[in-house]
């Protein structure tokens, strides 16, 4: 199977120079499919949690963005019940100049800066706007319950 050079290079760099708090390891039997873990950022309700994600580079990557979702349950206004993520750089604002590494950093940043005005999980976003301390407390509880390292 011929894997594009671009993907090989990105993978090598992810291994050689890992991003702090982020790990991405390709599956042996599918080098376009990665097991990812992201540490919740400090000073966020996700601090102390390790979140598992899966990432797939479609056939026409990097012309189209990677597909990525959370496997760990998370209480966040921009992440839905199936772990799908609402993030501009994964959709309309994707550019082939972006990489796996930049996308994972954007997701880590999204954990530190939830955006209830552009929600994917409507019930969570509404709670975030009406009762932010309550929503943050729930996000902390879920982190302890589901994302314990």
């Amino acid at each position: 199977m011929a894997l594009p050079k671009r993907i090989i290079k990105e993978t090598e760099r992810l291994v050689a120079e890992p991003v702090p708090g982020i790990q991405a390891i390709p599956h042996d039997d599918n080098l376009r499919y990665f097991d990812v873990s992201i540490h919740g950022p400090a000073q966020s309700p996700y601090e102390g949690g390790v979140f598992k994600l899966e990432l797939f580079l479609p056939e026409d990557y990097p012309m189209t963005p990677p597909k990525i979702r959370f496997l760990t349950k998370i209480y966040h206004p921009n992440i839905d019940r199936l772990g799908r993520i609402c993030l501009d750089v994964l959709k309309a604002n994707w550019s082939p100049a972006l990489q796996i590494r930049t996308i994972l950093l954007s997701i880590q940043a999204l954990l530190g800066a939830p955006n209830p005005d552009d929600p994917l999980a409507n019930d969570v976003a509404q709670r975030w706007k009406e009762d932010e301390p309550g929503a943050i407390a729930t996000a902390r509880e879920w982190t302890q319950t589901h994302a314990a390292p």
Partner: protein
Amino acid sequence: MSAKVPRNFRLLEELEKGEKGQGSDACSLGLDDGNDIMMTNWNGTILGPPHSVHENRIYSVKLHCDEQYPDVPPTVQFLSRINLPCVDPTKLQCLGNWKREYTMETVLLELRRFMASGNNKKLPQPPEGSTF
């Protein structure tokens, strides 16, 4: 060789096709439990094919996609009672020649085609709306 879409992303594609209304009008599909991150169990419906005893009937089925899907086909079970040769009485055995490119929609449409074929379109059917 083309990229091999992993199970979970394949199932998300199938889900999103339904959510966006891009699926066939002759069948429908949805997750049994919207919180099931592994997307294992699905509910489907098949609109009975025209010019057959099944016309205007809506058949409910359950589909189960295990960890090997789509390398292996989903298992399918009719919830609505139906008289069809491969339904025994609730397990389905007419899904031979599975290919990885096939989807759950392929299965539902193939069943619908089977309902409309040959003698099957004339078989006497249990009362409409009865379930196994």
